[in-house]
């Protein structure tokens, strides 16, 4: 009998595990302002697990809302985080990922995170509120981008190798 489901049970379990890993990485580094592994993990998940990243990402976003509350910031997460996998799909359609390029992408995303989130404040509070909100957080956006750049530069290669070998092992089972 042919299986018509979008994902197999094995894939769903793996996606749940990867979402949990994403969430745990966020919580465990939350004491460091704007230093996070979520961006790097999302890039890796997109490169290795392709379309599964959407399910993993939205489970993560819902978990964030359940734990921290569904505030205004949460609604911006619905469209801000997906920008990163979308950029990876676009840039790395035919290209092989290199640590420096990935680090730049992650760094630029970190620096523009506040700008992307301000889009939601544009709708709710108008251009003045959005600009003020964005500008007030710029030093933190720069720290975010710098952190993303260096974390990706150090961790991308080993994590990419690890995840690709896990993926290979999974597909051979």
């Amino acid at each position, binding site marked *: 009998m042919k299986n018509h489901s979008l994902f197999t049970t094995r894939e769903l379990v793996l996606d749940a595990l990867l979402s949990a890993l994403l969430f745990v990485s966020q919580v465990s580094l939350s004491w460091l302002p704007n230093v996070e592994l979520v961006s790097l993990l999302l890039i890796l998940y997109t490169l290795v697990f392709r379309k599964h990243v959407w399910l993993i990402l939205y489970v993560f976003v819902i978990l964030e809302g359940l734990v921290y509350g569904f505030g205004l910031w949460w609604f911006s997460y619905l469209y801000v985080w997906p920008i990163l996998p979308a950029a990876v799909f676009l840039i790395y359609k035919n290209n092989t990922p290199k640590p420096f390029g990935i680090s730049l992408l992650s760094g630029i995303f970190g620096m523009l995170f506040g700008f992307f989130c301000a889009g939601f404040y544009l709708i709710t509070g108008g251009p003045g509120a959005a600009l*003020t909100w964005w500008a007030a957080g710029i030093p933190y956006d*720069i720290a975010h981008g710098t952190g993303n750049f260096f974390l990706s530069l150090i961790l991308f290669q080993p994590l990419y190798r690890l995840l690709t070998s896990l993926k290979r092992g999974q597909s051979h089972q």
Partner: protein
Amino acid sequence: MNRFKRLSPFLGGCAAIAVLALLLVVYTLTKPVPMAGTKSISIDVEYENGVNEHYQITTEAQFLLEALKSIPNFQIEGTTTEEFGLMVTTINGKRADYQKDGAYWALLCDGETCNYGVSQQAIKDGERYTFQYTLPSEELKK
């Protein structure tokens, strides 16, 4: 195509530098500029039950929170974040519980919503600051 691939790290680096420069320019142009010297300002607190309190002060402070702290019997409390400073929850014992009913203390500068929070709002001579107990239903009426 190969030439483009060789150039892509350079182009990526240029993009990162351009974004960083843009952020620095926006931050420099929009950061609040405090005014030096003595300023005379008024502060109003509008409570939920319609009761208002008025304070008139003269201060050397540059930001609103510093000025408020100098007023005897004026109590302001909240949670502090590095990014936005004090997020006001309680004024003179009256708490706005956002988790419970969406209430919050709105900060107005001369009747318009201030662009900054109480810690980052630079004060100007002659300006009137209002703390308004606001419920979501009242917000819709504005």
